């Protein structure tokens, strides 16, 4: 799953530490999320989307290999 976390964080002018404090996670988690090494739980994803004031699908881009329905 890709995300636009870094882009939105920079738009807000927040550091990774500031975002981590607002989201109630560690800075390492924010780093891992931005690098795409870790996929957040649905709760954290909603919390982050709410912090940036955007819908969850705007922040996190779901990709799957399933064929599209006809």
């Amino acid at each position: 799953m890709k995300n636009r976390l870094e882009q939105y964080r920079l738009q807000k002018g927040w550091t990774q530490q500031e975002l981590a404090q607002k989201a109630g996670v560690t800075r390492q988690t924010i780093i891992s999320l931005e690098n795409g090494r870790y996929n957040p739980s649905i709760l954290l994803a909603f919390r982050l989307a709410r912090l940036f004031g955007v819908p969850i699908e705007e922040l996190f881009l779901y990709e799957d290999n399933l064929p599209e329905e006809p």
Partner: protein
Amino acid sequence: MMHTDLKQKTTLYWLLLIVSLNMILAGILIRILAPQLHLNPYMIISIGLIFAAIAGANLIKLNLLRHHPAHVQEWAVYEKDERVQMIRWRAGNTAFIALMEVLFLSLIILSITSSPQAGVDALWYFLAFLAVFPMAVYYWQVLRLQKRM
């Protein structure tokens, strides 16, 4: 007021310290009072020392935290962080699977060879290994997953 999680962790490590000190004491008493027994007291003392070191180090860390309230919140966030929880869960899972594999492999080898010459000493070394092995796998996995996740 002490943080609830900090209090719980402190109690847990005190219990571990008491258990490990009892193990050390039991090992010393076996060595002095019952040297004729087919037990390896040094093995019991060694495992007790390992657990005592873990408990002691964590108690010192938690005590330092208690005296620095600013760091308690930081520690609480770390302890409840979902990525940290996931890493611990996965490391514990791997350690358990590794333990089961070693145990089953050993039982298979033992049943094939059915060697009575293995002796009581070998059994003690093996049991001690089983106590320490999952812990080593757990910490190795935590370090590995922290880099990967």
